[in-house]
């Protein structure tokens, strides 16, 4: 899950396994959610988004699930590869306020 502080939550998975990264968002008025991937020394990169009128959206090897009841978002990465190693963070937007970014979860993929 997300946390604020110097130490990011870390998820370590074996190459080929599925990864699930979680995010708790804060504003029930948020209606648009985005997952970003940030590799070391680079800027964040868009992965997938979802609007609040959906529960699930799939991309290439990635799926985002949205549970508005508990204000929870998850990113599932299928068949995780070494190139997936990065920090992943969610963002919530809409409701008339500025985008709020989570601190992120660091994903390590073991070969």
């Amino acid at each position: 899950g997300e946390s604020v502080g110097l130490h990011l939550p870390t998820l370590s998975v074996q190459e080929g396994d599925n990864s699930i990264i979680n995010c708790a968002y804060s504003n029930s008025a948020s209606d648009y959610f985005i997952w970003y991937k940030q590799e070391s020394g680079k800027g964040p990169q868009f992965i997938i988004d979802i609007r609040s009128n959906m529960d699930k959206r799939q991309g290439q090897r990635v799926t985002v699930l949205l549970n508005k009841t508990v204000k929870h978002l998850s990113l599932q990465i299928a068949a995780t590869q070494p190139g997936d190693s990065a920090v992943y963070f969610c963002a919530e937007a809409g409701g008339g306020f500025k985008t709020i970014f989570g601190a992120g979860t660091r994903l390590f993929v073991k070969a």
Partner: protein
Amino acid sequence: NAGVTQTPKFRILKIGQSMTLQCTQDMNHNYMYWYRQDPGMGLKLIYYSVGAGITDKGEVPNGYNVSRSTTEDFPLRLELAAPSQTSVYFCASSWRFQETQYFGPGTRLLVL
């Protein structure tokens, strides 16, 4: 398309010095943003712009200034640098306001 480009990649400043971080995008996006990213923290919005000639403060604007004379360019100015401004700065742009943002590679700034 180069996307969003930022210069410089890295800079060391002494306390009290000033500098401008450059940001350019070639996607014809109206919306542009400046963020700072501190270790283990989420991105914090410094300033944003909804179009040429229009800028507004974000969450942490103190110590910074921006201008937007063209659609493509959105420079961030630091006046009287302080150690608290040591951070990584990201510029971003988007097609729709606050929706999917495209980020530059970042500028790492160290103030000593």
